[in-house]
């Protein structure tokens, strides 16, 4: 892919994605807050039902493995 396409792709997606870094216990350490505000030290497992359902599975995920979901409709932070 040429550079202009990469630039276009990054320009498109950076406004439509959010990165949240959290510990194994679910405590939010960092978040870019692009789509929604999630306070630091909040538990993602208590705030987002989707994450609550995945808690066990994430804990068992091997280092280097990833898991992806195509389309999720879920409440966030009680909303």
């Amino acid at each position, binding site marked *: 892919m040429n550079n202009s396409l990469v630039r276009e792709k990054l320009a498109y997606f950076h406004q439509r994605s959010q990165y949240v870094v959290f510990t194994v216990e679910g405590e939010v350490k960092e978040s870019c807050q692009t789509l929604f505000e999630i306070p630091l030290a909040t538990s993602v497992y208590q705030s987002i*039902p989707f994450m609550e359902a*995945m808690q066990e599975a994430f804990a*068992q995920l091997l280092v280097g493995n990833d898991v992806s979901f195509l389309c999720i409709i879920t409440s966030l932070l009680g909303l």
Partner: protein
Amino acid sequence: MTLSKKVILLGHYGVGKSSLTRRFVHRKCSDQYSTTIGVNIEKKVVALEGVEVSMIIWDIAGESSHQKVPQSYKLGAHGVIYVVDLTRPATYEQLDTEIINLKKYLPNVPVLVVGNKKDLFTEKERTDIIKQLPLSPFALSSAKTGENVDVIFTELAQRMV
């Protein structure tokens, strides 16, 4: 004590997975049909004797086989409700094979087979349809009237703890 449990609803499109979920969680049922895209996640806490179960219900878009459902949606599931539509034989003709395959993928996970749209039949018709099912369902339900909806989810909650 509250336990979190992931519940997935599987079955063909249009069998009533979303209606059952809506009935159980929101006590509502709509006559309007809307297709689920991806997965819709709802949560309801069920109180059992001595324990609360936080049921996180994954209402997954209908597929003719669970093998067409992305594996990540099934990952970590603690319980399954497999829904068939009693009015459409195509939704239960392969039921036995489906359940066998599903149990290979999710061993030791309780699976409840539910025949939905019970309200559309007389008692006699229901008896005839049950004879045609490859597997005996746990229950027949009606999302429209609410019949057996709580029974199904509560039974699954009990089997998951």
